[in-house]
């Protein structure tokens, strides 16, 4: 048997799941409550971690003798000048440092990781010395890759006119197939998320004492809250 704190946690998690999913049917008071609570909790969680990060990665090395960290603290504090009408421009300096470091770190390997490696991989696609099905797949891959690259050359409109338009058409079909694949995968992800919550409700919450009674009560209250305010006996207003 789970301890009291865990049981409370499970009850909250289950009820909030039901309340959040209720938006699929109609907006209601319980959804709003769950939504606002989630936003508040997430903000609180982020704030706590923000403070923890400052202590762990800034303050701890500073008091350990790495006094250069004072520069980081000053830059961090300067970010808050954006809330001052006259000195908001100062916040651009720390922001520039953040953006500069981010871009610098990403760029040092981007050319290799996302340009050269991808071109090498595409250029290395084999049509000979592989089985017939692989050769066919690779041929389709090559045709669609080249036609999609061609499709995005906008500088010379004549490249898409007349008979050359067939290349753009192939590119469009290729991209539509890719979007379809992407959509199907998105559906899979979403269904998995719903399954996770349903599984939690059925396997973890419902076996707890009184949960089987609470479920229909929660559903009845939900349905009642979905009735438009003017059509229900009480309360007549909805904020």
């Amino acid at each position, binding site marked *: 048997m789970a301890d009291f704190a865990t049981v409370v946690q499970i009850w909250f998690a289950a009820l909030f799941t039901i309340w959040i999913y209720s938006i699929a049917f109609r907006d209601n008071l319980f959804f709003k409550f769950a939504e606002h609570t989630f936003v508040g909790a997430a903000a609180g969680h982020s704030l706590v971690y923000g403070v923890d990060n400052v202590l762990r990665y800034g303050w701890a090395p500073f008091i350990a003798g790495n006094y250069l960290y004072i520069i980081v603290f000053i830059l961090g504090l300067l970010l808050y000048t954006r809330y001052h009408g006259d000195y908001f421009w100062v916040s651009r300096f720390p922001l520039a440092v953040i953006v500069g470091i981010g871009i610098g*770190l990403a760029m040092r390997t981007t050319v290799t990781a996302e340009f050269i*490696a991808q071109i090498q991989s595409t250029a290395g696609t084999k049509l000979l010395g592989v089985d017939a099905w692989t050769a066919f797949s690779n041929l389709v891959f090559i045709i669609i890759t080249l036609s999609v690259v061609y499709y995005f050359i906008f500088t010379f409109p004549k490249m898409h006119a007349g008979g050359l338009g067939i290349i753009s058409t192939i590119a469009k079909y290729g991209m539509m197939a890719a979007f379809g694949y992407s959509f199907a995968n998105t559906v*899979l992800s979403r269904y998995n998320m719903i399954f996770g919550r349903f599984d939690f409700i059925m396997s973890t919450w419902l076996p707890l004492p009184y949960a089987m009674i609470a479920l229909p009560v929660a559903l009845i209250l939900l349905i009642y809250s979905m009735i438009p305010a003017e059509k229900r006996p009480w309360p007549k207003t909805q904020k």
Partner: protein
Amino acid sequence: MGKESKTIWDRLEDIPREVLYGILIITFIMPMLFPIGFPVPISPEVQRWYNFIDNLPAGSAIMIDFGYSGGGEPELGPMAVAVYHHIFRKGGLKAITMSTSIEGTLLWDKAMAEINPAQYGRQYGVDYIHIGYITGTETAMAAVGKSIRATTTTDYHGASLDSFPIMNGIDNAGDFSLLICYTTGGDQSEGWVRQWYTTYQTPYLCAVLAMMVPTMLPYQKAGQIVSLVSGAQAGQMELLVGKPARGIKSADVITMTHILCLVLVVVGNIAYFGKKFSGGKK
């Protein structure tokens, strides 16, 4: 003006969303109550993932990024749990975990409670550790790759890293034989390619949400990722590891709901063409 009567095609095109969601919920719940037992074939990617870990020599260190958020837990959680089972069962491996997601540490605790490493005789600080959420995403990856101790000196509970035997001789990307990332964000899955695979050639296994797979596939094709799987394939990993759990349970439900999705697409198309050929608007 009189209200125009709706044809059967109009009704099919405008099925209220409440009805659709209702059908969806029933389709979800029925296979959970009455499992069908659809087969779960093992894909080459999952097999390659499993084999890679299985072939790691004793003493190898693995960097694991718990980079997923709470929303992605139902999909990526079962995969992470199954892989940990494999790592712990095999033994002799050092599983060093960090989080590039703010919720990662909480979800790691949840995963550990589910796994119970003690059943394999594995100890915190000896066989596995969590060095905490490290902010900055790609900056964090680069920093940890260069030096873990220069980035953080403590684990996620604030205890000194030097007090844990698992951290002996481990400080930078060169000390790791494998990198595993579970993530709901493209910044993480692609960031590790840039900051670890490209810079240090660390073999990389990546588990993402199914919707991210199309974006990540080119990296696998280019050999930058050893194996790319979606969390939805967790059932396959559970079968390989011999620990059937949430992933397997979801197989029937996911199959049934996808069949429903196909049926609804067909119904929508029938309504569209029916309306078109019966003289209605396009």
